[in-house]
């Protein structure tokens, strides 16, 4: 496994007039679970291709454990990749699929058997080791694809490209948990690429938010969520994202806007901003009362508040903000934990 360092890495496709990626500085520790979060078009795929060796940086350096690999071809970097849709050999059994990357590298048979047995037990593939992929569920197939990536003992980095896309929403967590477990057990450096903020925050120890070819912020999930570096991240992370209001709405805040998460506010009789309820969505109950997301139209635009949803459209309510982040010119100034 390796520590991954990007030093001022930029990339421009031949013939293009602008950089697809620019000025990337990032250090991912050996054994870290890291997520790259961004919308489509942010540069995630290009960054993956730089790491896997399909592309080389136009400028800057890429280091694995301090060694410059910028121009090293992919197969000499020992990078394994898991794709959105599992790539498997349908005519081989689960165990044979796992053995394949080792056989092609001429690994000794007893070594292969040992590694295959180890991965089967780590990923609980034992029961299906003699089954062929066409009879597996999508979940099992993707688990096998992960196994194939991890089976080589010399792998320095595992890249996961939206690995949960094809898996049913209700069992995504299970695959994510299995991934995290092997990540910890094997001490693998993993980079998980996704547009889904829930997946990024739940999976990673640290998250880098990518937008328009640049890294906007790298931090722990808590830092990214509670203390976004700028308004874009505040909006992009969270579902729905942060609400923004002029600073004048909340006494003694400085900057030009404040941002607050839907659950950092409550609907009361007299709060900071008055509005009219335009939409109520109930997602569950708490104490047998409707709980969910209430949308209000205020003089400053739409505001989302999460919590008590015993409201109806057309009702007047006031938003009390309990916690917020202040921004100046789009960038974070301060976190205010208690308004």
């Amino acid at each position, binding site marked *: 496994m390796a520590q991954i360092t990007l030093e001022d890495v930029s990339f421009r496709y031949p013939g293009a007039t602008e950089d697809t990626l620019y000025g990337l500085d990032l250090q991912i520790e050996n054994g870290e679970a890291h997520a790259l979060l961004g919308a489509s078009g942010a540069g995630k795929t290009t960054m993956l291709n730089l790491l896997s060796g399909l592309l080389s940086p136009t400028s800057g350096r890429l280091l694995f454990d301090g060694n410059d690999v910028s121009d090293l071809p992919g197969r000499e970097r020992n990078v394994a990749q898991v794709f959105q849709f599992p790539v498997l050999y349908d005519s081989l059994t689960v165990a044979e699929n796992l053995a394949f990357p080792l056989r092609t590298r001429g690994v000794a048979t007893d070594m292969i058997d040992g590694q295959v047995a180890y991965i089967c037990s780590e990923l609980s593939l034992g029961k299906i080791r003699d089954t062929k992929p066409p009879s597996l569920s999508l979940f099992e197939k993707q688990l096998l694809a992960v196994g194939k990536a991890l089976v080589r003992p010399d792998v320095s980095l595992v890249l996961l490209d939206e690995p949960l896309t094809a898996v049913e929403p*209700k069992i995504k967590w299970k695959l994510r*948990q299995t991934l995290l477990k092997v990540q910890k057990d094997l001490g693998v450096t993993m980079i998980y690429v996704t*547009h889904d903020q*829930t997946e990024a*925050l*739940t999976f990673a120890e640290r998250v880098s938010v990518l937008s328009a070819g640049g890294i906007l912020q790298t931090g722990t999930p808590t830092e990214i*969520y*509670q203390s976004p570096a700028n308004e874009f991240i505040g909006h992009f992370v969270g579902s729905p994202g942060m609400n923004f209001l002029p600073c004048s709405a909340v006494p003694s805040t400085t900057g030009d806007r404040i941002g607050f998460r839907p659950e950092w506010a409550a609907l009361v009789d007299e709060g900071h901003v008055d509005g009219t309820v335009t939409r109520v969505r109930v997602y569950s109950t708490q104490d047998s009362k409707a709980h969910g997301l209430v949308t209000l139209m205020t003089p400053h635009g739409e505001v989302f508040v*999460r919590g008590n949803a015993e409201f109806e459209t057309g009702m007047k309510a006031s938003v009390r903000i309990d916690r917020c982040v202040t921004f100046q010119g789009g960038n974070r100034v301060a976190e205010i934990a208690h308004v």
Partner: protein
Amino acid sequence: MLALANLRLNAGCSEGFSHTFLSGQITVVLGANNAGKTDMCRFITGLSTPARGEILLDGEDVSSMSPQQRSVSLVYQAFVNYPNLTVLENIESPLRAHSAPAAARLTQASDIAAKLQLTELLHRLPHELSGGQQQRVAIARALAKDARVLLLDEPLVNLDFKLREALENELRELLTASNTIVIYTSSDPRDAFTLGDQLLLLDNGRKLQSGSPVDVYRNPNCLRSMELLADPFVNRFLGDGSECAIRPEHVRVDDKDHSQASITFEMQVTAFETSGDESFIHGQVADHDWIARCQGMKEITVGSKLALHVREQDIVRF
């Protein structure tokens, strides 16, 4: 309204079911993979499917009509547009099929394009658009057909997260404005609450339950119904000899309100996740896998033992 009667979604169904979809409402059809959602869509559209039954649209039996004759449009998960036609021509295509005059076509197509924020893209070809934009074109084309029934078969599955969120909001406003019968299939319980006026639960080709999403949530008629609406699953335990279930959002890590009758469980924590607004604690309670969904960010150590509180009023018994 659209009435289905004696519907058998696959050959394995011993008895059929009936369901009525109302005009001007969005019905979310929720089920796991292979529950029969796509077969139901194909049956309503008139495409080939193993499903058998009767179908009445506004009182008229349309069973023997071809897909072209039915006033039904279907949007698939994979965005299907005419690759050689511009966005505008794509949206106009159903109007052209009904030989509407050119000027009227243009006005109508432009209106729909504006609603779906496609105005800037009218003269582009589908392959020049992002996935989300292509799916919006497919939806715009379906709306242009102005059919009585609009079927959306997991239309947002392949889309970027934020785009999905924006489209969910737009769709709801757009669809409820008309008097169309809208049927939206999904395997994600969130969609039921976000989009549905009505909910129909399908499981293994059978109808489990229907009603408003909140009513079904509050009063599940069986464990499977409760499970389908749970995110990601329900916690189970045996209490007084009956099968009991509790939703993840009703499991409390700390319960300061001692006036409520409650039961305490001990969980061996195996994993912990946070998505920002919520935290998920996974673990074992007795021999069952449990999950607790708590609001906000929590600090929980994996491997620790945790006391969980469950209030009597939140327990569902079967």
